[in-house]
């Protein structure tokens, strides 16, 4: 039996007592080694789910396990995963190397490991020639690559990616997707959200469509397309979530 990278059981969550329920008795299993796409319209609960899986938010009840360990303040659990947030969540005044030095140390790496990983990541992501320049002067695509490098510096076993290619050009998007596939081949489980359905089609081996805090479809991509008689993910998406606006 395939072991679970993520196991969510009976999850219940709402932001405040008087606000609406986001997840009610929510369950989800993601196997080790998958490239898993969490897709859904605006306000479906994708980012909230990602924040719950990474411990940024705490659930009211239910259980979330990463590789068999409950998500908590436990440092060992936090070492298992990496997080690439939707926004450029790092220090714009610092260079990529300085950002990696800081976040690497906070991820638990020592000085030597940080040095090696920084060199490796900046080369792979095409940032070597700007390693010591302040990130504030970078283009959106370069910033996204810095964001990604920070998330993977400690070689996490699970990588959460919240819209990692938002606002970047086609070249950068392809470079990021190719790099993520390489990471997955090396054993990293990817949990990915995006509105770029063609990108999701090319990256994900399995997808779950979420709407209003519920999974409305979940399987490997080809099976889903066959089940719903669709040629592509976009048709499947519209077929299952409808065409009306989702202004949250």
């Amino acid at each position, binding site marked *: 039996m395939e072991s679970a990278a993520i196991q969510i059981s009976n999850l219940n969550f709402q932001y405040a007592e008087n606000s609406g329920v986001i997840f009610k008795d929510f369950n989800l299993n993601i196997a080790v080694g998958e490239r898993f796409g969490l897709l859904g319209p605006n306000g479906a609960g994708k980012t909230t789910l990602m924040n719950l899986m990474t411990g*940024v938010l705490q659930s009211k009840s239910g259980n979330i396990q990463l590789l068999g360990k409950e998500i908590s303040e436990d440092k*060992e659990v936090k070492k298992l995963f990496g997080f690439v947030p939707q926004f*450029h969540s*790092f220090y*714009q005044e610092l260079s990529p190397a300085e950002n990696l030095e800081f*976040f690497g140390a*906070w991820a638990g790496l020592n000085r030597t490991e940080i040095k090696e990983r920084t060199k490796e990541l900046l080369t792979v992501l095409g940032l070597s020639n700007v390693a010591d320049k302040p990130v504030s002067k970078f283009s959106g695509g370069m910033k996204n690559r810095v964001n990604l490098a920070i998330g993977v510096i400690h070689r996490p076993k699970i990588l959460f990616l919240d819209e990692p290619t938002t606002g970047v050009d086609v070249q950068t998007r392809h470079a990021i997707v190719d790099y993520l596939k390489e990471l997955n081949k090396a054993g990293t489980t990817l949990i990915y959200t995006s509105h770029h359905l063609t990108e999701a089609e090319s990256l994900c081996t399995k997808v779950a469509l979420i709407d209003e805090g519920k999974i409305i479809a979940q399987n490997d991509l080809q099976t889903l397309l066959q089940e719903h008689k669709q040629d592509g993910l976009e048709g499947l998406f519209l077929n299952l979530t409808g065409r009306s606006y989702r202004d949250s």
Partner: protein
Amino acid sequence: MYKLYTAILKELRIMLRDKAALAVMFLMPVLLVVVITSIQNSSLKMINDNTVPMLVCNRDGGESSLQFIDALKKIGMFDLQKIDSALTDKQLTDSMHAHDALIAVVVPQGFTSALKSKSQNITGKALTEFGMSVKLEQDSSALVKETPPVAMFYNPVLQESFRLSVNGALKSAQQFTENRAVLQALYLAMSDKKLPDSLEQQILNNKSVINQIPTAKDGSRKIPNATQHNVPAWTIFAMFFIVVSLSTNVVKEKISGSFIRLKTLPTSFILNLAAKQITYIVVTLAQVLVIFSLGIFLFPHIALPKLVLPENLGSLFLVSIACGWCAVSYGILIGVYAKSMEQAIGFGAVSVVILAAIGGIVVPSFAMPESLHLLMKISPLHWCMEAYNTLFLEGGYMTNVLYSLLPILLIITAMQFAAIAGLKKQRLI
């Protein structure tokens, strides 16, 4: 330790690359302390050391008016400039502006005759009391003329306290002139001779001196001056003004999502707060070093009194750390609750100015109205100022400083708890 080191390094790099913030933290207080100390020092000097320009319009011209002017001169407070006695009040006012004089004195017509009449009258009454019958120049029972009042014109910008001291000086000169006239009349009546100058000087010249001694807790007798108040005062202001840089730093981390990212890493967020506090406390100590050094080394070269450090340097260091920590805690608190950088900068800067005003930084607390005394105690800057005053002006020791340090530590604790509560409420830790 390596995590703390990288966090401090991160804070230092961010701070050192923000040139505008550095200018606000170091250049602005340096300018403030030099400019304000110079202004206060010159106004104090004007009152204490220098002579104040005073125009004198003698509309009487008689002997007593000349003696009155001479007495004024001997007081040593004024640089007297005689002006045309025929000037009208309007012309006199214009003349004050033209001569850049803050005060003008008009000796009215009839001043001498009235004074003479008054002295004759007093002499006559005195001699009659003694049972002596002497012939006076003027009949003592004759109607005594009231001495017409000397008029003092002053520029409205003149502070009330200074105006009162000028008024006192004028009264003293007038008293001296009257005493002299009475003495001369008495002597003449009793001996038919004019009072000898030497005797007159001996009797009238009051050589008694009043020693003014500032009392300090350490028994020393340092005289407080503009430097001793302003250097610590504006150093505290500078320390608290780091709120602008620190709070925007915190807001930036919130908005960018860095706080959220840190939350997913296997390191306690408290370490990030500790790194910020250590870095910015070091900055406040650097401010102390820079501003105090200016007071010690630069001020004597620009005609300002040199800053005299308290003898108890250990206490000075502890007080500086406590004040710096208090300022840093305030900066973090503002950063945690501000929703945008504009909010942090605006509220931070304005609140520090208000807290400085009510805390006795701009105006010493003893000179503030009674109604503000309670309000003053809620300002952390007030307690910082009190602690520095205990060391700089009163020569106090650690035990004396504790009275101010305890409220500072309480305020720090309250602000730290409020900041952590705010971060928790915003789900950032």
